[in-house]
């Protein structure tokens, strides 16, 4: 999943190196409009809905955190 997410985000947001930082949000590398793109792309690919409460810096600060967030959202969807 990590490789696929990197592929998607690399295509949609080529100016951001998602593997280079563990503080993408805190350091301002991932800005608000980039997060809109990220949500749109990953929602479509994985058929998940981002709850507003999941959109925290902690959940988006690194590629590993993003992967975990998607997995968590998939679990929530399965349980619905």
């Amino acid at each position, binding site marked *: 999943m990590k490789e696929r997410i990197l592929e998607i985000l690399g295509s949609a947001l080529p100016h951001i190196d998602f593997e280079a930082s563990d503080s993408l*949000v*805190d350091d*301002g590398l*991932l*800005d*608000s*409009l*980039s*997060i*809109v793109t990220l*949500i*749109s792309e990953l929602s479509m690919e994985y058929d998940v809905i*981002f709850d*507003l*409460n999941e*959109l*925290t*810096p*902690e959940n*988006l600060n690194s590629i590993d955190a993003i992967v975990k967030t998607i997995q968590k959202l998939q679990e929530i969807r399965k349980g619905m």
Partner: protein
Amino acid sequence: MANLSAYDARYEIRLACEDDIEMIMNFIDAEWKKGHILATNRAFFEYEFKEEDGSVNIVIAIDRDKKTMEGMAGFLKASHDPENMDIWGAMWKVRPGNMALLGIELIKRREVYSGCRHDIGIGDNPNTAVPLFKTIMRRQAGKMNQYYRLADTDFFEIAKIVNRPLETAFCGNGKVIDFLSIDELNRRYDLSQNKNCIPYKDAWYIEHRFFNHMIYSYNVHGIEIDGIIEAVFVTRRQYVNGKYVLRIVDYIGSQFAFGEIGEFWGEVLKASDCEYIDFYTLGFDEEYLKKAGFTRRKEDDENIIPNYFSPFVKENIDIWVTTSVHNTLFCKADGDQDRPN
């Protein structure tokens, strides 16, 4: 909550108070627009945002280390009814270089700190704010419709008319009366009957926003049918280049009643020397607007019905709105849309 701690660790996020006003005005001057009326006119700033108890209707973010203001999310109340208070967002800005989604965090706090029933967006930037609201807040977004009715002339200086619309007004049985004060209005019409409407506009709002506006002069009217006031609407005459236009800026109550005063608008156009009457709205039943002789400006319309007058811009302007509630009614004067710049 974990999501609060990241922002709270870096910023002090709170409702502003009177002591913050100078700092906020400086922030608007630096980050919004140099010389903006809300950066230069303290009395007008206080008219817009300050409550009688001294609180200021703006959520601010202060960087804890730098001690600098980094963001703001203002709001304007549609009522002072604590149970049914809807707000419109106004003056939403985060200085570049801050944590992503700080702006969204300010909106979330605004909903909590204001105690509002609904937080409504009007005049949002379609390239920045609207995608955030749609994707992250999952609000519905749309453009307000602009309706207009032209004077019986072929010479237009403010508008540009390429194709004259063919709408014909229906002569209904509505009678328009003037309200010169909120007391006069209250005697004839109970605004509280609209508590379930979104937004709910109470007597405090109508008095503050229209009867007591610091700069603009508004006319408040009622539509009487069979001796009963069925609706209240507000107009403002706009002067530009030696000519006038009449703007319908607010509407409360029965939409059916609007369709009963087509003749009135025709008389107004003859008597007031206005080129046209316009009405930006969304959520209003178009049937009644057409019945009163109004036409909707279409997408890519060759006709131009301007919206900006200070300075005057001869262009069609789209006003974007966002809401999380289906039946929200939007009007031109909602939020800070009918405001001097």
